[in-house]
């Protein structure tokens, strides 16, 4: 941070620049750490759901040797009959791995929502805002550090945890197969885990960019509302959507809100293969990703623009905020 400023008397100025000056990112880094200290759920909730899922998978994996024989043994009658659709059986195999990533992602989304609803409210409720404001950390840094939790930290946790979880699941499956004298090589060869991980990375990035205005809106309201942040954040929007629907028989706002929630899949993925057949969302091959279309979709940029505006408003608003 630059301590130089016009009109600052010399005697103060000379004193102000003597200590080792901190880099601009240091307060941001420590503020993000502070948020994680305060909100354990940022990592505990995804870890807990991953652990529970892993437990369930460990139990289910007992049936794997049986299922593998059903599905993959080329000489079984069933396989001969079902061989016309290899993708189906691949999906059956990939499904638990896809579910793992989806579940972790869903929990992280919920954590992000609840975090954002409390982000600028909690510090006013417990009066600690007076302590934070007594330190040389700008409102911009504070708001950015809070926004970084749902926009950066949680997506990183989702991706890292999904990868780790999927690797453990595969290891578990392989061990069970080997112990039962089954073909571990088939699973190893058939399960497209690296491809799935790349899709998870892409999907996580796409979803967080698409959802950015939701988190930012909730943060802005959390800094504004005196109580019942969730209601203030949600009910007015629903009310306007309902009024629009009743008065004009249109649902422009309603479909816009729904699009903001789930519209990313249409914008970022080709959900039909080249023959026009809808693909199964449990296994999306790399060929079905549409980064070009996503990056050129107005929905993405409009959303990011709104998110930036909401954050700017939250920064400005925090200057005026006092304990509740």
């Amino acid at each position: 941070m630059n301590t130089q400023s016009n009109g600052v008397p010399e005697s103060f100025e000379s004193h102000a620049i003597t200590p080792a000056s901190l880099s601009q990112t240091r307060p941001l880094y420590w503020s993000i750490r502070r948020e994680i200290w305060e909100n354990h759920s940022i990592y505990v909730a995804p870890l807990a759901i991953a652990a529970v899922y892993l437990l369930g998978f460990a139990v289910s994996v007992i049936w794997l040797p049986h299922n593998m024989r059903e599905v993959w043994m080329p000489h079984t009658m069933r396989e001969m009959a079902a061989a016309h659709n290899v993708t189906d059986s691949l999906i059956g195999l990939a499904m638990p791995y896809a579910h793992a990533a989806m579940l972790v992602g869903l929990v992280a989304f919920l954590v992000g929502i609840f975090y954002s609803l409390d982000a600028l409210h909690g510090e006013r409720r417990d009066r600690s805002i007076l302590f934070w404001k007594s330190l040389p950390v700008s409102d911009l840094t504070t708001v950015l550090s809070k926004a970084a939790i749902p926009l950066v930290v949680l997506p990183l946790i989702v991706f890292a945890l999904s990868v780790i979880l999927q690797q453990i699941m595969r290891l578990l499956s392989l061990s069970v197969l080997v112990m039962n004298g089954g073909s571990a090589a088939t699973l190893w060869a058939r399960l497209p885990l690296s491809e799935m991980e790349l899709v998870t990375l892409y999907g996580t990035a796409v979803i967080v960019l698409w959802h950015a205005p939701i988190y930012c809106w909730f943060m802005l309201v959390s800094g504004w509302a005196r109580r019942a942040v969730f209601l203030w954040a949600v009910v007015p929007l629903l009310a306007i959507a309902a009024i629009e629907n009743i008065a004009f028989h249109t649902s422009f706002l309603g479909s816009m809100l729904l699009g903001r929630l789930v519209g990313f899949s249409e914008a970022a993925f080709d959900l039909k293969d080249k023959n026009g057949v809808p693909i199964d969302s449990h296994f999306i091959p790399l060929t079905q990703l549409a980064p070009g279309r996503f990056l050129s979709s107005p929905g993405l940029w409009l959303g990011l623009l709104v998110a930036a505006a909401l954050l700017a408003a939250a920064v400005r608003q925090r200057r005026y905020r006092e304990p509740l």
Partner: protein
Amino acid sequence: MKVIEARGLHKAFGTTVALDGIDLGVEEGRILGLVGPNGAGKTTALDAILGLTQYQGELKVLGRDPWSERDQLMRDVCFISDVAVLPRWMRVSQALDYVAGVHPRFDRAKAEAFLTKTDIKRSSKIRELSKGMVTQLHLALVMAIDARLLVLDEPTLGLDILYRKQFYDSLLNDYFDRSRTIVVTTHQVEDVQNVITDLMLINRGRIVLNCSMEDFESRYVEVTVHPEHVAAARALKPIHERQMLGRSILLFDGVDRKQLAALGDVHTPSIADLFVALMGNPAGQAQGAAR
């Protein structure tokens, strides 16, 4: 060099005027006690100085505009606004880590040294500490920051006399020097009478009295008047009179001490007595303000 300089500082909340055009100049190396009844505008004045609230009029703190440059200003200014604003979920070690992380002038060793003199454990959460310990921790953090100006808004409210005494002793012995400036507001005026170098009484958003403690001691005299001299004493126009144990105690402003000594027992009034005299007495207010 003025550390705080305000001219015509004005702030209103709706129709309620919290600061009614205050002029203020605090020199470096002073300890200013800001005293006034509830709702007098003390906290509003401090909030303006700390960049926590908007105001009208001119205000410079260490040469900066507090409202627009709060984060820069906080490198050189520390404050304890009210007791127990430290986040309750935080551990003591995390509080040290965080302040060390964001504050360029924080000397962690100094804070640690102060904490070893207390019963505060590094691994404790702040919610587990007593109110007195939270204040000690806050003081440890603040005293380890090499700041030019320290602002204390009711820092010892609700603490017992031991903690209060320790608080001001630490402040004077381990922190204060002539290059630092302290502004403190408190209702426990007896605690700060021997701590502050300057006194400012404020009421209804206006300064009622602004003087150094040397001036205070030479200017105000309280006399426990001998019953036979009461009429003579009253003739010297005391600004306040009260009865205690059947004796009249009269407070004088700017009357010669030797002259008063002939009328009874002479002593320096407490700030609290002067406070009552000036605040409870509209005529007295006018007299004080006129100075």
